[in-house]
């Protein structure tokens, strides 16, 4: 029914959904040329094949991955799924097909184009999440730490552990504007929830004075005789500066009241 050369899968965007695509690919002995999201507006010449998410199928695939190619590979594709790489779904499917064929050695096949593409994407993800662990800036409103980021990759799941270990007794909130999600934490429990928009309240006096102190420190620590903006830029690309206190992004005026920030936290 479907011609191999123009087979398109449409899945629901979840990791389980993608695993069902893998199931389908083996079940029907076919390889898609594209795997798309339900809301992809791009019009294709050919109608896409709808892949329903079936937990029974996806859990069979999930169980088989560590068995056939090891936990490293499973951990790897989980992270690959978080990246912003183009056609990541298709590459993950092709990666798994290779994995079923070659077993554990798949993680060493670095020169294979599929594996290489995913490795680069995951490296990008890991780099970004590592940088953001440092570049996130919290403001304290009502004793809740609030931060905003705009990452390319979906890094929140990779930052959860770090910040939970860093601030075990605090309540904090990191809003990912790109993906419309937020990481919320209160002592000993965390969750990632969808959030539409976030506007920060005016900082209070104490918050404002610590911001000023930090800016003062930032400006003073530079050795003028070694000024090197290019070096700074390569270590800290400008796209991160937007939400960093030292570059004086004064928060927008907002209608959100202080006590409203508390409602984002888990009840």
């Amino acid at each position, binding site marked *: 029914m479907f011609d191999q050369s123009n087979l398109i899968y449409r899945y629901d965007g979840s990791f389980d959904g993608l695993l069902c695509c893998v199931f389908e690919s083996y079940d029907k002995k076919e390889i898609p040329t594209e795997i798309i999201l339900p809301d992809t507006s791009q019009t294709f010449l050919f109608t896409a094949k709808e892949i329903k998410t079936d937990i029974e199928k996806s859990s069979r695939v999930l169980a088989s991955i560590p068995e056939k190619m090891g936990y490293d590979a499973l951990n790897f594709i989980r992270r690959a799924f978080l990246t912003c790489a183009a056609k990541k779904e298709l590459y993950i499917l092709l990666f798994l097909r290779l994995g079923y064929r070659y077993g554990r*050695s798949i993680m060493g*096949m670095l020169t294979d184009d599929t594996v290489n593409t995913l490795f680069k994407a995951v490296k990008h993800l890991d780099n970004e999440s590592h940088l953001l*662990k440092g*570049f996130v800036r919290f403001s*304290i409103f009502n004793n809740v730490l609030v*931060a905003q980021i705009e990452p390319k990759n979906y890094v929140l799941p990779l930052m959860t552990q770090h910040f939970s270990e860093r601030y075990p*007794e605090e309540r904090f909130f990191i809003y990912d504007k790109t993906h419309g999600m937020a990481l919320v934490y209160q002592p000993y429990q965390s969750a990632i929830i969808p959030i539409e928009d976030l506007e920060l309240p005016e900082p209070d006096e104490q918050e404002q004075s610590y911001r000023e*102190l930090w800016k003062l420190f930032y400006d003073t620590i530079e*050795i003028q005789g070694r000024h090197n903006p290019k070096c700074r830029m390569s270590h800290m690309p400008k796209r991160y500066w937007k939400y960093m206190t030292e570059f004086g992004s004064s928060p927008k005026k907002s209608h959100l009241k202080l006590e409203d920030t508390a409602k984002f936290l888990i009840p």
Partner: protein
Amino acid sequence: MDVFDKLKILTDAAKYDVACTSSGVNKKAAAGGIGSAAASGICHSFSGDGRCISLLKVLMTNVCAYDCKYCVNRKSNDTPRASFTPRELAELTINFYRRNYIEGLFLSSGVLKNPDYTTEQMIEALRILREEYRFFGYIHAKAIPGTDSGLIARLGMLTDRMSVNIELPSQSSLQLLAPDKSKHSILAPMKYIQNRIQENSTDIIKYRHAPKFVPAGQSTQMIIGATPDTDFQILNLTEGLYKKYKLKRVFFSAYMPVAENALLPTLDTTPPLWREHRLYQADWLLRFYGFTANELLDQQHQSFNPFLDPKCNWALHHMDFFPMNVNRAPYSDLLRVPGIGVNSAKRIVIARRLATLQFNDLKKLGVVLKRAQYFITCSGKATGNLKITQDKVLQSLMSEKTLGMYHQSFPLQSQNKQLSLFEQPSLLLSGYPQEDLQRCLTSPI
């Protein structure tokens, strides 16, 4: 004086300290605490000079009883003075830390009254942080030469990393510029810290919860270019410190003229940044690439080649070592190829188990072929139509800017001559053995 003024003065006074790493230890807060540390270290920002900001780097006080000629905080310098109270400092740290501005505190100090009194002040600030605020983040403290060892031991229990600054690379330079410090007063606390770390590591084996002494090890730093010490001496000293004192890092800082003194370079000298850069490159080669100081420099070559990095320089002097078969060569040999780094060498070792590597594969693994192609073969073959001419090789090993500088000092005189460095007297390279530079750049490849 309010906290703003103090922070400004005490940051300004601390900024010439180079080390700002938060690496070397993995830990997380215990219940009721705050703070963690990652072994890789985390940079929280980068200042306008491109240096990483990881820790709140300040002095406890910039009042100083010593008069080291090269230092902004020397007694004789007319500069505003300030001191943090231990509580002010602890509060500032914890508030910066909560907002994720910093990974922890880097605390150094001028010598207030005497070394012991100063260290007691530092200990008090760290005690408030660790005990009252239950702070588990990273703390790096400077050991002040001349401090009582009992106090150093207490300081060490509160910190993750300690450092004693070597300051100047030789005893004679110290005598000249830092009359209050001696080689002995610097090396004694270094040795003491090393011994304590050693003892502590056996304690930890016996008792899992034994308190840790300086778990992230110790580091040091020295000033480059304030004294006539050569790169060879500095590199040998560095190697010695890694071996003998088990240091985690040795930092170099190009001398920024901060004082007018007949014994020092004049105020308008530019800091020898390229020299600092070459030393760091060599330092990396010592720590991660299995080179020794004597391979990189020797009695006859006391300074680094300004145009070539130490690894390329070594490779060009050892062409008998190449070309290397990437599919066979052991990891330690791969590391010696210009254009192959630690990461790409590791990837090569993994990937070649499953496939014979070709040149386009190497590119995927992150090898810089532009450099590496002159030194390697893949299954017996060199890269196709590789033209090995002097100019091509130089182009591949130097950046455009460096190549421009190189051509300035050795201009091409006419078209039919490839390089005129045989006749041209050296302008920029006075002091660098001419015939060796020629040999290294013109030896058959």
